[in-house]
């Protein structure tokens, strides 16, 4: 079997929301060229240990991806939940010098959205299989056209309560209670020169808005969102880009993460 197409260029950036320190960033992004896999997860900011949970989801997928639509997700998520449980310093949280609210908040668990992708070949074609839960999105640009937005396609779908995985089951007897919402799958062939963009919700929302209402230059040509994103070459440039969009109210102030693969 041939190897899948390798991207010519990979870039990834992740920053916390403006005004917060970098250690507050609860997003996680992982790309493995060796395994032809990637994952991006956006940890819920209001919960404790969500960053750890998002990291376990992305690294867990890259090590051990699921690809079938009828996959029993419990067998994948439970070991990650146990790993999350073991990262929480319960002994310290239960000490007398720690206020109860910190323990209660940890016991509520973390939560995170998820987007995972896996490249493989069928009949010499590179196929990308994608699974998603929540509002972390993927876009595929071919030529001068955005040919896929997944799982969300329009701005109205980006709400305040996205679907997500929980670091603890809500009901220990219910295998479906480790997530809210339905894990969605799709697949698409990848061709030379394709541009793949994965982004957390604030960037994705801006992207679909920009597709619908592009900004036009004075000569009448549209400035398409992927062009701006692909031009970013450093974390500082990424931060400046996000700051400018947030300041002019084009983007929500949130942790922001971007993964770009140019084939």
């Amino acid at each position, binding site marked *: 079997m041939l190897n899948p197409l390798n991207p010519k260029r990979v870039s990834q950036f992740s920053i916390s*929301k*403006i*005004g*917060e*320190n970098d250690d*507050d960033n609860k997003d996680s992004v992982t790309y493995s060229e060796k395994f032809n896999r990637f994952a991006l997860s956006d940890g819920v900011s*209001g919960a*404790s*240990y969500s960053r750890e949970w998002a990291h376990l989801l992305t690294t867990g997928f890259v090590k051990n991806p699921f690809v079938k639509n009828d996959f029993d997700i419990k*067998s994948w998520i*439970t070991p990650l*939940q*146990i790993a999350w*449980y073991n990262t*929480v*310093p319960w002994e*310290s*949280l*239960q000490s*007398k*010098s*720690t*206020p*109860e*609210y*910190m*323990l*209660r*908040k*940890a*016991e509520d668990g973390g939560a995170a959205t998820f987007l995972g992708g896996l490249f493989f070949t069928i009949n010499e074609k590179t196929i990308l299989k994608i699974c998603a839960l929540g509002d972390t999105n993927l876009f595929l640009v071919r030529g001068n056209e955005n040919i896929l937005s997944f799982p969300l396609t329009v701005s109205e779908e980006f709400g305040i309560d996205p679907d997500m995985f929980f670091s*603890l*089951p809500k009901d*220990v007897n219910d295998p479906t209670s480790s997530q809210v919402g339905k894990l969605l799958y799709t697949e698409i062939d990848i061709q030379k020169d394709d541009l793949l963009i994965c982004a957390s919700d604030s960037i994705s929302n801006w992207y679909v808005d920009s597709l619908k209402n592009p900004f036009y230059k004075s000569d009448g040509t549209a400035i398409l969102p992927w062009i701006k994103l692909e031009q970013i070459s450093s974390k500082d440039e990424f931060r400046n880009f996000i700051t400018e969009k947030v300041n002019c109210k084009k983007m929500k*102030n949130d942790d922001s993460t971007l993964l770009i693969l140019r084939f």
Partner: protein
Amino acid sequence: MTYAAEISRNNPGLIGFLIDQSGSMDDKMAGTNDPKATMCARYIDAFFNRLLTKNAEGEVIKNRFEIFAIGYGGMEKDVSSALNGIDLNEMPISLQKLQQSSVMESRKKTVTKKVPDGADGFIEKTEEVEVSVPKWIEPISDGWTPMNEALTEAYNITTNWVEEHKTSYPPIIINITDGMYNTEDPEEISEELRKLETEDGNTLFFNIHISDNATNAPISFPTRTSFSPPDDLAEKLFRMSSPLVEAMVEHGRRKDKKIDPGAVGFAYNAEFGDFIDFLDIGTRPAG
């Protein structure tokens, strides 16, 4: 657009409480069997617990707010810190310092938690545990009601704060009282306090008159046109109060509170439930 600044560690907010500690705060609060001073302390403690929970990440507190709490009562012009172990001249304090200044009350509780079952899943485990619940406000009820002096102290703290936090969300200051001030008229200093501003808007000053008399109808978030002042004090506290900002009005409506456009952050003869709703709505930027 004002009252839109994001509250963050680099751009913190300020929340202040002025707490009447005069003798009459020893009377029972309408709708409860406990003195007003006790209920007031209990619910400001609950507010601090919620605020710290929201801003806790693991075992770390994120300093997204600064806090002051001033008690007024006792002898003629007694104004002091209402927080255990914190001097008035140290205020405002960060959330981390607020946590450090708490007095931990040990309580036994039965809790059910989820733990790994040692095989391939989780089980629920119920056990009795000892937990530490932080408290800050000592219920005090003694002597006079030097509201003007408390407002002057709040004015001094807030003046320095807005100077150092020009881009922050404007300060929110809540005065909780059960009666008539008996030193100088506080209206003028309240006006000066409300004039203090950041680039995002003027200081918000709200007043809650709590009650020991359940027979008079409570009034919450009135407008100028809907408000018929029952007495001179109510009229004065109304005039001293800032209008609610839109996000607070929206939040109140989501909680099924009838709040009209132009509503003012003022409650009169507030019973227990009104008091809690007021704290929730008036401190909405704290989430």
